């Protein structure tokens, strides 16, 4: 920090005022400005989404804009029964399975890489910069590369091979970066204490590192799942003959101009919320267990 020390005698009045403000616990004016900005941001974040959820419950006369025409589940039925909207159900299943696979591999890979990157070792710089490269490479470019590579090797591209790998090339570096942030709060003294008490390397990881980092690991899982579930440009050239959900949505945005598009939005959002709920519940449970353990001591 290059903070130039400001001698207190230069601003005695300011110092006094600050002391008073702390006593009264009064909010500075910037609080209200930023609170307004925050509210506006949250409204802009949720407002449009709420619009399409509401609009998806119109009846058969419904259009893409307000006002609302009737109230029914027509477009949800339409979504899963009409042929013209594509294979939504299959895409949904494939996307969920793919996202689960990506999540598991991302959690394991980024946890291990996070452990490794805590120390300097020969060649770490190369791996690190490759990882950053993989993170920033435009998705479509990478997708084309993977597609051409599979073509060249004579392999059939499919959502569970080439698309899985293409997703991992983006979720894994992302997970490692999140792991960096999580591990920066990890005090290595705990690990050393365990070692001094005779714990093996594996015991240290299983009984000290993983339990302490558990909430962060769940966060990585959540990132992995969402980034894969939602990934479009990396999947486009790599999914093979069967589409994932984002590809279905993409083709719908080009062909379908009915509220079934919005119905799809509502359904996928519900699925996302379900997963977020489960993950947050898991984190809360872990925190509670930990505070219980602390309380007992």
């Amino acid at each position, binding site marked *: 920090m290059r903070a130039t020390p400001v001698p207190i005698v*230069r601003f005695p009045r300011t110092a006094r005022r600050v002391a008073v403000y702390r006593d009264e616990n009064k909010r500075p004016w910037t609080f209200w400005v*930023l609170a307004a900005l925050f509210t506006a941001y949250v409204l*802009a974040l949720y407002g*449009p989404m709420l619009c*399409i959820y509401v609009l998806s419950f119109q009846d058969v006369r419904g259009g893409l804009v307000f006002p609302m025409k009737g109230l029914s589940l027509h477009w949800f039925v339409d979504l899963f029964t009409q042929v013209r909207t594509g294979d939504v159900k299959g895409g949904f299943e494939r996307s969920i399975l793919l996202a689960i696979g990506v999540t598991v591999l991302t959690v394991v890979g980024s946890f291990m890489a996070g452990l490794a990157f805590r120390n300097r070792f020969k060649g770490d710089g190369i791996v690190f910069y490759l990882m950053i490269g993989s993170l920033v490479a435009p998705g479509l470019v990478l997708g084309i590369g993977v597609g051409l590579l599979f073509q060249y090797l004579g392999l059939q591209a499919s959502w569970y091979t080439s698309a899985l790998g293409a997703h991992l090339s983006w979720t894994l570096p992302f997970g490692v970066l999140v792991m960096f942030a999580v591990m920066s709060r990890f005090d290595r003294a705990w690990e050393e204490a365990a070692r001094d008490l005779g714990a093996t390397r594996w015991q240290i990881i299983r009984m000290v590192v993983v339990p302490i980092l558990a909430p962060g690991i769940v966060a990585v899982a959540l990132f992995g799942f969402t980034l894969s579930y939602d990934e479009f440009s990396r999947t486009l050239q790599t999914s093979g003959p069967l589409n994932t959900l984002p590809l279905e949505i993409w083709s719908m945005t080009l062909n379908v101009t009915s509220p079934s598009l919005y119905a799809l939005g509502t359904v996928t959002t519900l699925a996302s919320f379900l997963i977020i709920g489960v993950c947050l519940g898991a984190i809360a449970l872990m925190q509670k267990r930990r505070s219980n353990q602390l309380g007992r001591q």
Partner: protein
Amino acid sequence: MIASADISRARGPRWNIASWLYISPLVLVLIPFFVMPILVVLVASFMEHDGFGGMIAHFTLENYASIFTASLTWKLYLSTIKFAVLTWGLTLVIGFWIAYFLVFHVRNQLLAIGLFLLCTVPFWTSNIIRMISWIPLLGKNGLVNAGLISTGLIDQPLEFLLFSDFAVVVAYTHQLTIFMIVPIFNAMSRIDKRTLEAARDAGASRFEIMRHIVVPLSRNGVALGSIFVLSIVMGDFFVVKVMSGGGSASVVSALFEDIGVLQYPPAAAAAVVLLLVVVVMIALILRTVDVRKEIAR
């Protein structure tokens, strides 16, 4: 333990089998799904094409020559960089102040975490759906136009709201601000509150605290957020395609058109050039900060 760590640092990094074992899953993803695909694209960019989707293994610089001589290339890059800079500026300003509000103004930590999660929830829903959700708001008969007409501010619906550059920037900002909020929030929440109190006691004004403490210590977060936002905008074609209504193009959307007509070698050359541009941009950002400091304190 501390002594042995110092010794190993003095000797410089060594080959470390355990570290390489930990990092191996990451390497096993990066090599087949990042390094090799990019090499394949690089090779393809030097090949001739027969115009029917085939590639002829004959060395040529024709693909690159046509990229650099076409005025379209410069227009595409200009337009993409314009979007990137606008989005980066907006997300940085909004993201910084929201993170600042959450970390320093919301005093109840549980509430701060709750509000933080409120910002991140939409990130876990489909980007495509979130983008489409602007249609009922910004459209010609959308809510914004209807509202403005009913208040008498305008008598004709504003045409520029949807399917325009404006809509593209709105959609990007909507999607990507979270990529700024999260790393900046993380960096800011690691600032020791006592540093701020000490500065205040020493008579520093709130502006001075901001300038000398908060901004320098959030720099890593800002850099990380910028990497995410810039690399996503530079690699995007979906938002530009849908939200501009076909009126604007980006480097990747042009590349996508090439793929659509199976012009692989020219697309590969464009991809290589784009990749170099993105890598240079990110390298410039990485020069200003050490992202790995996030973990190795």
